[in-house]
């Protein structure tokens, strides 16, 4: 039974609770609910987390911005081609500090999802993000990015306008930014589309978010020629927050309530805010040089490999 089915059962229990008047009966069902949550919903499979990361009620970037920041002014456009609604961005304040916030935006309705292309940016979206990041750097504002995308968009326009170049340019420029970049994976961290705003000094993942080189479906269909094995792929791919922490890729995990972030958005956002604030304070004592250097070194060191002792090879290599 996957987490969505468990959630339905939980919802039923909660609906029952609402209808009850009797104190005794209420206490009983309440106990049942707590027991159900603790016994059935605490331990999640990788696939459960995939489902939660994609949950239709999952917190979107705008939800998080609304709740975590005191003020927010959205800014638009890449100054060249189009305003990509898959990317939301602007200036925000958090506990009296100005920051630049950039996020990938999913819709909650079909209409919204079409407008923002299901959070799959086009090249102009990455370029808009880069413009806002360069603006942040000019004004010495830390950058917070909120990652939630299935990935880059496989479309004719996106390819024609150079999404490869646009993603590469972001990786390149982000590497040199003189202000701290704090990335938070909210839901899906899908491949190059996610990384294009994800080169952070600190990278956090919500507990039930995922971050991977491609979707489990894609993995299964390419490696096993069978897209229906996505569930197995999710396990194999090591794409949960816990996996990525173990792999040394992310800085930390932001806790979610039992059953997923959408069950207590406010609590989740408080956790996000705490994490961001701690991270911001961490960089307060850093110089621009140190900020760039630390970020560079972090990514420079990522790789799972081994090299034979160079000394042993000395005789061989000229």
């Amino acid at each position: 039974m996957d987490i969505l089915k468990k959630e339905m059962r939980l919802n039923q229990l909660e609906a029952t609770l609402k209808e009850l008047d009797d104190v005794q009966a209420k206490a009983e069902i309440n106990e049942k609910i707590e027991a159900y949550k603790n016994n059935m919903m605490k331990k999640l499979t990788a696939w459960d987390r995939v489902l939660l990361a994609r949950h239709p009620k999952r917190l979107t970037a705008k939800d998080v911005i609304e709740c975590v920041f005191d003020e927010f002014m959205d800014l638009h456009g890449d100054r060249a081609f189009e305003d990509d609604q898959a990317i939301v961005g602007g200036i925000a304040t958090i506990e009296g500090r100005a920051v630049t916030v950039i996020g990938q935006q999913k819709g909650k309705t079909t209409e919204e999802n079409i407008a923002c292309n299901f959070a799959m940016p086009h090249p102009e979206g990455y370029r808009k993000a880069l413009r806002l990041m360069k603006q942040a750097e000019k004004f010495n504002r830390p950058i917070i990015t909120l990652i939630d995308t299935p990935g880059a968009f496989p479309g004719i326009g996106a390819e024609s306008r150079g999404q490869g170049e646009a993603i590469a340019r972001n990786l390149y420029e982000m590497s040199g930014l003189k202000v701290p970049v704090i990335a938070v994976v909210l839901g899906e961290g899908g491949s190059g589309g996610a990384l294009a705003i994800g080169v952070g000094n600190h990278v956090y993942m919500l507990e039930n978010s995922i971050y991977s080189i491609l979707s489990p479906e894609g993995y299964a269909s390419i490696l096993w020629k069978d897209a229906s094995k996505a569930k197995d792929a999710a396990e194999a791919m090591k794409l949960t927050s816990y996996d990525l922490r173990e792999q040394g890729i992310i800085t930390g995990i932001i806790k979610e309530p039992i059953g997923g972030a959408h069950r207590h958005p406010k609590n989740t956002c408080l956790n996000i805010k705490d994490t961001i604030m701690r991270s911001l304070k961490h960089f307060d004592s850093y110089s621009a040089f140190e900020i760039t250097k630390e970020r560079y070194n972090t990514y420079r060191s990522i790789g799972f490999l081994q090299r034979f002792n160079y000394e042993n090879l000395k005789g061989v290599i000229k």
Partner: protein
Amino acid sequence: MKSDLLKQAFDKQKAFKKHAISYRKKPLESTKTPDVPKGLYEQCDACKKTFMSEDIVNNRFVCPACHHHFRLRAVDRLSLMVDSHSFIEKGLGYITLDPLFIDGYESKIADYKKRTGLDEAYIYGYAQIKGLPLVIGVMDSYFMMGSMGSVVGEKVTKSIEYAMMKKLPLVMFIASGGARMQEGIYSLMQMAKTSGALKKFNDQGLLFISVLTHPTTGGVTASFASLGDIILAEPKALIGFAGPRVIKQTIKQDLPEGFQRSEFLLEKGMVDKVVDRHHMRDTIHQLLRFHQKEL
């Protein structure tokens, strides 16, 4: 945490004893002429005509009939590009591990090693083109589709750093199916690593020429391949981020003629020049000359 994983991987590797220490002991050298199996015949993928292997090789691996550019092994690319015996390979001894514990991945790598004679899908080193020094890096699409895992990402980065240390221009020949799924998130992160290294390289005013050959797709397109000061492409190479099959599936529409080919990218402003393999060496030499302090 990370070291735990590393330890496990090594433990697992020990079981495959014969592959575990299979790194090349001798660096590659560029030779004047590539090895050609004498008396063999080869068919052109494009026009389906058959030629003697020798004739194809002598025509720089270009079909004598239809001008189709055959896919090149890294060593053959070297032999076409650099002065004979000028290549000094660097960055040997890297060993690909198996971070996701995928059945068959290690034996696959071992197999590719044996078949290609390479450690991984990228080799680099010092070389000269008509006497001008450079650092040259070449991807080999015969090594697991030239996909980028930790080792390729590391070696690409090392080649950038080596050129930076030597203050030499860097020329890379790209041929890749993208990031390597089998190494999961590590592969994805190589995109950030290599791009970051190029930012440092660029800040020192050094020249990076990226040459896109068939195929250049996925994570490599979205990182170092697209970051050349000058970007060249071989004719009709497939170049893109998303693969054409995925796009077709997604948009449920036929793709325009010539979509994602070199000439299309030139038109779309992504590529500086489409250069025939017969002129590639001269073109790169000219660019190197243009960027010397004194011509």
